[in-house]
């Protein structure tokens, strides 16, 4: 639907910017997960240098990932588990 709009009217700098923001927001996960290609990284970083709202979205997304990776407690493996596994394996032989 975006494209119909831009076909009907000549591109304004605003419309281009909007498209860029959309593209950048689609790349947020790729960026925080280290899955973006070099080209994508360059495009992304150049954009967030100039765009406050995309910059902030990027910060928020990083924070969210950090909450899980840095704050979610790991559960402790019960001491007996390794022994149970080994015992069951020997049983099934």
């Amino acid at each position, binding site marked *: 639907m975006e494209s119909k709009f831009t076909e009907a009217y000549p591109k304004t700098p605003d419309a281009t910017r909007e498209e860029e923001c959309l593209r950048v927001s689609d790349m947020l996960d790729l960026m925080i997960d280290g899955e973006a290609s070099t080209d994508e990284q360059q495009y992304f970083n150049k954009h967030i240098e100039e765009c406050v709202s995309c910059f902030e979205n990027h910060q928020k997304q990083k924070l969210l990932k950090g909450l899980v990776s840095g704050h*979610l407690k790991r*559960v402790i493996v*019960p001491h007996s588990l390794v022994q*149970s596994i080994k015992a069951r394996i020997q049983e099934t032989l």
Partner: protein
Amino acid sequence: MSDQTGKQLSKEEKDARFEAELLPVLDPLYNFAYRLTLDEDDANDLVQETYLKAYRFFDYFEQGTNAKAWLFRILKNSFINEFRKKSKQPAKVDYSEVEGYYNTDDVEGESGVATTTDMRTESVQDLIGDEVASALNALPVDFRTVIILCDLEGFTYEEMAKILDIPIGTVRSRLHRARNSLKEKLEKYAKSMGYNS
């Protein structure tokens, strides 16, 4: 017994390799099982089941390939096939009992919640950890799974696609929706605590 692969190991070789290559994955595997089942006993059973299968099919595991991803895939399949039906529902978990320590890595970002309160005190760290856990546990299991695999275990999209038997595009969209959902739950919490998020 047929020997299709032609490289059947002796029991000693098999046991040694099993111990060296597969048992070191026990900790992440148990954590994954716990996050799926939200129950210690169920996690225990699921992990045992996984290792039994891994041992049985060890000849199919190619040495030097990703043992962690292989085991996660077996566990995920066991969970779906046998476990999901009989798995007990959440809400009876006492986190303080079972959750012992954190990753001490700092949160990357410095914006948002991080600046609104003193993050250094242990009680605040505890609160955040508990809140992240309950927000995550409230997500549908498919959403919980991709977030655990990606953010806690650091699997790549490609590895996740293999573990979950779905295309990479589906991994991406599921992860995206899962994060939106998690964000929503955490924002509600932040608001209830009087933070502006």
